[in-house]
């Protein structure tokens, strides 16, 4: 399998603090890779290393099958990026900001109008960036990252600090890119909900470690609803169920099952009633992806 980005035991420490440890990222062409993790998990540090802004303490990074330490410039020629808060020159207009980057990248001037169009900043192209809202600055940053039509786009929390409409706008923009331009995208966030609707692959980091990496569908499978039974004597009921070959769990006075069809629920109720146990409530408890995410990262933090 060919990966656009592949890291091996990527680690970075700041003094004693291990910010990233033994990360093995694998990102295929055309994916929107959601890089998730709570604040301080090491997302930005990882992204900085991917861009050659920071040197790894150990481990290797391969992008486009090349080593970042050796072929940094060749690799970066095909990457667009936005790291943490947007960078810009406040005393220059949006157009001039892009022009300063365009000169370095050596792309045609028409690209400036094109990218301004993509992020819908054309009307304010000749206004100083100083007066822009955060959302506009963020969009300018994305425009800058698109200037040289990169094959890989790396966006670090591009929706951070935006209002809901700004978030939706950026989300729609990002979703269009792989389809329309064949880009591969890495987008980091500390909120699952933000990338839930666009990512195709997910990597979750917590305390510098990669604790999950798979498709978003695989992650959704974790989010199956659970059915709970509240009865007058939980423990006794649970034992009857086990005796009847029904695998259930018991905790805090309630019986619960991870996956449960309607027929199975009916059967369980029947068994319980037959054994003389009163069934008070049968409830379905839906777990959101967010719960799963929280549970995963909390579990890691507890260790």
């Amino acid at each position, binding site marked *: 399998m060919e990966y656009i980005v592949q890291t091996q035991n990527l680690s970075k420490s700041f003094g004693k603090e291990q910010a990233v440890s033994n990360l093995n990222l694998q990102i295929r062409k055309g994916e929107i890779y959601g890089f998730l993790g709570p604040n301080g998990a090491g997302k930005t540090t990882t992204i900085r290393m991917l861009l050659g*802004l920071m040197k790894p303490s150990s481990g290797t990074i391969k992008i486009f099958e090349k080593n970042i330490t050796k072929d940094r410039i060749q690799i970066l020629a095909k990457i667009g990026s936005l790291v943490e808060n947007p960078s810009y020159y406040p005393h220059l207009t949006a157009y001039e900001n892009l022009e300063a980057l365009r000169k370095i990248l050596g792309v045609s001037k028409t690209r400036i109008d094109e990218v301004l169009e993509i992020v819908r900043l054309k009307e304010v192209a000749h206004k100083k960036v100083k007066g822009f809202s955060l959302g506009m600055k963020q969009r300018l940053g994305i425009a800058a990252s698109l200037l040289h039509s990169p094959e890989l786009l790396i966006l670090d929390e591009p929706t951070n600090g935006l209002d809901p409409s700004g978030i939706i706008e950026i989300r729609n923009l990002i979703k269009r890119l792989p389809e329309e331009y064949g880009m591969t995208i890495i987008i980091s966030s500390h909120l699952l909900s933000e990338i839930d609707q666009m990512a195709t692959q997910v990597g979750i980091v917590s305390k510098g470690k990669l604790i999950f990496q798979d498709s978003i569908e695989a992650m959704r499978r974790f989010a199956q609803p659970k059915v709970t039974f509240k009865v007058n004597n939980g423990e006794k009921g649970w034992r009857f169920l086990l005796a009847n070959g029904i695998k259930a769990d018991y905790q805090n006075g309630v019986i619960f099952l991870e996956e449960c069809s309607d027929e199975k629920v009916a059967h369980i109720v029947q068994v319980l009633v037959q054994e003389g146990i009163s069934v008070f409530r049968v409830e379905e408890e839906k777990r959101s992806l967010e719960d799963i995410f929280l549970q995963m990262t909390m579990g890691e933090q507890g260790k």
Partner: protein
Amino acid sequence: MGKLLTADFLKIKRKGLWLLTLIGPFGVVALQMVNYGVRKDYLLQQSEDDWGYYLLNVHSFTPLAIVLGIAILTSFIASIENETNAWKQLIALPVSKLTVYLSKFTLLAILLFFSSTLLMFFTMGYGLFLELGDTVPYMELAKYSYFPAFAALPILALQLWIASVSHNQGIPITVGIFGVIFAYSSYLLPDWMIWKWPSLMNQWNQPMINVLLGVGIGFLLYIIGMIDFARRDVK
């Protein structure tokens, strides 16, 4: 490198840096306008060589203006990248860090020598206006305009280095202020202090020594600064 430099020139737009390169030499000559305006007759009596004496008078403020100018220029130029931490955006482009640094240094050197050129024309202009004599000492004029700038290259390299690697911009400013104080008291400083060099003074009375040292040590400090800049992680 050419691409980076044109981008760097674009970035200093509206920052008042060109104005500063104009004000510096103008200020130095303007002081002599006041000086000669007030007591021209007295000053002309001081020496047989009126042009030479006039050039010395102009030169007495040049080192101060250069050291102050360099401190301001470097911190302005570094602040353009520091303000929104645009270093990370710049260095994530397909450019080498060495060239990024070289471009900044070149930009500063161009501004410095542009300022020296203005100084030469302003000095000559006012000298002609004063009617100091028919034979204009062009060589001396060029010497007093450009030598201090060459001798100041180590200060330029040092200030750029500090300004581009400091997270706290108070540090380069503090160094700059001390530099200005040092330049002001050049005649008290030992010869090895780089802040003395733009004054062109040394124990052998050979300004050329300051120029050669300036270029040599300036180059060395530039290389050290560049390597350090390239070695560091970008925040």
